[in-house]
């Protein structure tokens, strides 16, 4: 290959992209007639460009990509950033078992229209093998907490076999619905394959297709608070949160995450 000066190289590269104006193109045309090595170089750059294009055309993402992003594809973006003040309000602490019983034992308000739509969506056939998602760490988990960028607390529900990873006091945002094994209502199957019986509450089943965003705060291995962020009514949010926490606990139950479960009432059941 001929070594050429930078301006000429850039000229050829721009010619490949047809970025030259009329005058530049004419000048280059005349040079190409006089300098065959220049023409050869131009052809080479064109060939390289085409090769890169062919490589891109041949690249197809694995199907896993779509599976991992299913929760987002079903969801709507949040309207506002998640508030964090509630994390400081850990007033009344309820053991999760009691919380579940308490929350799910209550009468629930009629479903909101949006929830009804979600319920309708939930009637779509359940795949033979449910789509399982589990909390998983991001690459950010290897980075010291104080060095993480804004947004590093964001996490997706994703593949099984990896445990969640949150630093002390670091809220964990879970985006997307947990998969529900449709009827019977209230039966939640998590990625571990275990089943958590939360209660026979139809509202819980409706959450199966709800773009559900839950913020969990994990402190020293304990889920210190949980809060539903989304368009659900308060009662539905409470039911979903209680069930979800149960599911998460189940997912943690292999020994990594133990401890007292605490539910922040300001998040789960506002005003109660």
């Amino acid at each position, binding site marked *: *290959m001929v070594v050429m000066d*930078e301006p000429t*190289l*850039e000229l*050829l*590269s*721009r010619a*490949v*992209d047809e*970025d030259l104006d009329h005058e530049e193109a004419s000048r280059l045309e005349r040079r190409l007639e006089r300098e065959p090595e220049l023409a050869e170089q131009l052809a*080479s*750059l064109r*060939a*390289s*460009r085409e*090769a*890169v*294009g*062919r*490589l*891109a055309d*041949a*690249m*197809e*993402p*694995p199907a*896993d*990509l*779509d599976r*991992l*992003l299913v929760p*987002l*594809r079903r*969801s*709507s*973006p*949040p*309207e506002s950033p998640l508030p964090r003040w509630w994390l400081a309000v850990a007033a009344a602490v309820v053991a999760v078992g009691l919380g579940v019983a308490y929350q799910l034992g209550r009468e629930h308000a009629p479903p909101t229209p949006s929830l009804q739509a979600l319920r309708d969506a939930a009637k779509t056939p359940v795949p033979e093998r449910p789509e399982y998602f589990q909390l998983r760490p*991001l*690459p*950010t988990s*290897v*980075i010291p907490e104080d*060095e993480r*960028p804004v*947004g590093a607390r*964001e996490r*997706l529900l*994703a593949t099984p076999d990896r445990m969640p990873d949150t630093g002390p006091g670091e809220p964990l945002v879970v*985006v997307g619905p947990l998969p529900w094994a449709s009827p019977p209502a209230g039966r939640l199957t998590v990625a571990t394959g275990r089943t958590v019986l939360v209660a026979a509450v139809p509202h819980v089943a409706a959450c199966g297709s709800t773009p559900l965003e839950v913020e969990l705060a994990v402190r020293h291995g304990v889920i210190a608070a949980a809060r539903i962020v989304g368009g659900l009514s308060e009662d539905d949010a409470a039911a979903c949160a209680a069930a979800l926490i149960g599911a998460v606990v189940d997912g943690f139950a292999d020994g990594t995450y133990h401890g007292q479960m605490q539910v922040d009432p300001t998040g789960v059941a506002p005003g109660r």
Partner: protein
Amino acid sequence: MTFEEVYARFRTPVWRLACRLTGSETEALDATQEIFLRVWKGLDGFRGEARLSTWVFQIAWNYLRWYRRRTGAQPTLLTVDGVGEEVAAPPLADDRPDPERRATAAQLLDRVEAAIDELPEHYRVVVWLRDAEELSYEQIAEVLDLPIGTVRSRLARARASLHRTLDGRDG
């Protein structure tokens, strides 16, 4: 535009860019999730001042650059089969059986891939955005936050370097 539409349109380009900049399909999957989470969160606020593709690639580049810087990850070549082997370019009129032709074409793509992945990152991203994703110079300048002149010169050097590498392997 809904997230679903944005995802459908950019899932492959974003994943490809992530592959090129992380050098690992697994990491590219993680990164693509991260990038689309950011797209998802920001879509409501996207006002259309920039082109959608510029906006999405900006998010992707910012994330991938941060990721590379923080992890110190050096790209490992995704597919290097055939590197170093002397494989003649297939003639235009090729009467060999299809499987053989396909195999040769695949080897050539592997060589191109390896050659791209050997480029320094600041060259690799420019050549990829231009030649693979077909962004304009202006868009690339905006995505990478560079003067357009820098984009032109880096692209020229990247293409020349790419060609030198491929040329060397042919020989």
